[in-house]
């Protein structure tokens, strides 16, 4: 079993480092071999919305940079964990830059999921998804939107299980561990 951490912190940050360390610890406990991308250190161009990954080089982005490598690593994984500051209730631009490049994982054609139109799967199996967001200060509205966004991503990403939660910058390590353990339980990894 493999896990992938997509670290979207725009700069080194003690809380993000603490979350990352706990994630690595937990992943090791569950026997997952883990790879991490610190996205600020990777050269990843913005998706240009050209749809070349569907109609020119199906399944692969036409931009040859680390964005391709991240997408390949996602498809190699059983669990993908987003680590990001909660930015207006969403993800940081560092993380989003990588996520926007993931659409070659899907087919351009449509299907219906829960009564809504989404893209068809390109592959038979997709990884589970987890997200840990770091709030600058306690804020229920931002936390709720973050969790909603991730649950929407899980639908579009065909995730077999998903969970998202938040911690507040500067919180105690024990608080982080409590949140992370609950997320592992929700995604099904802990079973």
């Amino acid at each position, binding site marked *: 079993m493999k896990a992938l951490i997509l670290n979207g912190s725009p700069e080194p940050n003690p809380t993000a480092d603490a979350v990352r360390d706990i994630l690595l610890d937990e992943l090791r406990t569950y026997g997952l071999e883990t790879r991490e991308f610190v996205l600020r250190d990777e050269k990843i161009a*913005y*998706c*240009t*919305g*050209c*749809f070349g990954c*569907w*109609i*020119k*080089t*199906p*399944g*692969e982005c036409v931009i040859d940079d680390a964005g391709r490598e991240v*997408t*390949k690593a996602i*498809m*190699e994984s059983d669990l993908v964990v987003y680590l990001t500051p909660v*930015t*207006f*209730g*969403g*993800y*940081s*631009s560092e993380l*989003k*830059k990588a*996520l*926007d490049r*993931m*659409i070659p*994982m899907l*087919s*351009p*054609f*449509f299907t219906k999921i829960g009564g*809504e*139109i*989404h893209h068809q799967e*390109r*592959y*038979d*199996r997709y990884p589970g998804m987890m997200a840990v967001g770091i709030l600058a200060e306690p804020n229920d*509205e*931002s936390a709720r*939107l973050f969790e*909603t*966004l991730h649950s*929407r*991503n899980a639908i*579009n990403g065909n995730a077999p299980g998903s969970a998202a939660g938040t911690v507040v910058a500067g919180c105690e390590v024990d608080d982080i561990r409590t949140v992370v353990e609950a997320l592992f339980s929700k995604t099904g990894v802990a079973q």
Partner: protein
Amino acid sequence: MNSTSKALIMIGSPKPGKSASGTLATHIAENLVAKGFQIDTVHANEALRSDEGVRSLLASFDNADVIVVVFPLYVDSLPAGLTKALELMAEHRRAVPIDRKQRMMAVCQNGFPEAHQNETALGICRLFTRDSGIEWAGGLALGGGGVLDGRELGKMGGMVRNLVKALDIACSDLADGRPVSQEAVALMAKPTMPKWLYVAIGSYGWKRLAKKNQVLDRLHDRPYQESRK
């Protein structure tokens, strides 16, 4: 609003040429010009290419009475470039507060037939305004944005009747200092065509483009399949 009111229209589509968001932004700009606004139109991704571009974006932000953000839905939220632009704008506002009311409207269009799939993205825009001391005027959500494809709304006939009306009402609301009305929100969310037809046209379009690129037989390729084993 008086004749010197200024609007910043920020296009969040990363496409270098014409785009569905550009189509909507052009109509909004024309409408606001007719109401006496002076318009600065900025493409977020272009602004991010240079320090000068970012300085110019932030200057337009400081000058604006009204901000309109128009963008496509990417992975249930804003495209990364637009997210980066909003991060820079929020950071700038924390460093350089202004003693003047600014208002913002967001318009999100997506490639699915359902407008409601834009809700999380509009929520993010709203929280950007909350975090940046800007008054939230409201958000418009459009499904099936793919049909716009960079075309002029004026040449698209009855199919876009509701969305044109929605934009016109919303622009009047903005100009008069009102929140975007529910009538505009409801009109914008009306489908431009039946769901089944949108899906059929979309499927045909992908096949046509793949055929043109000589990859029709590769549309379902799985280049990372081996990696999954």
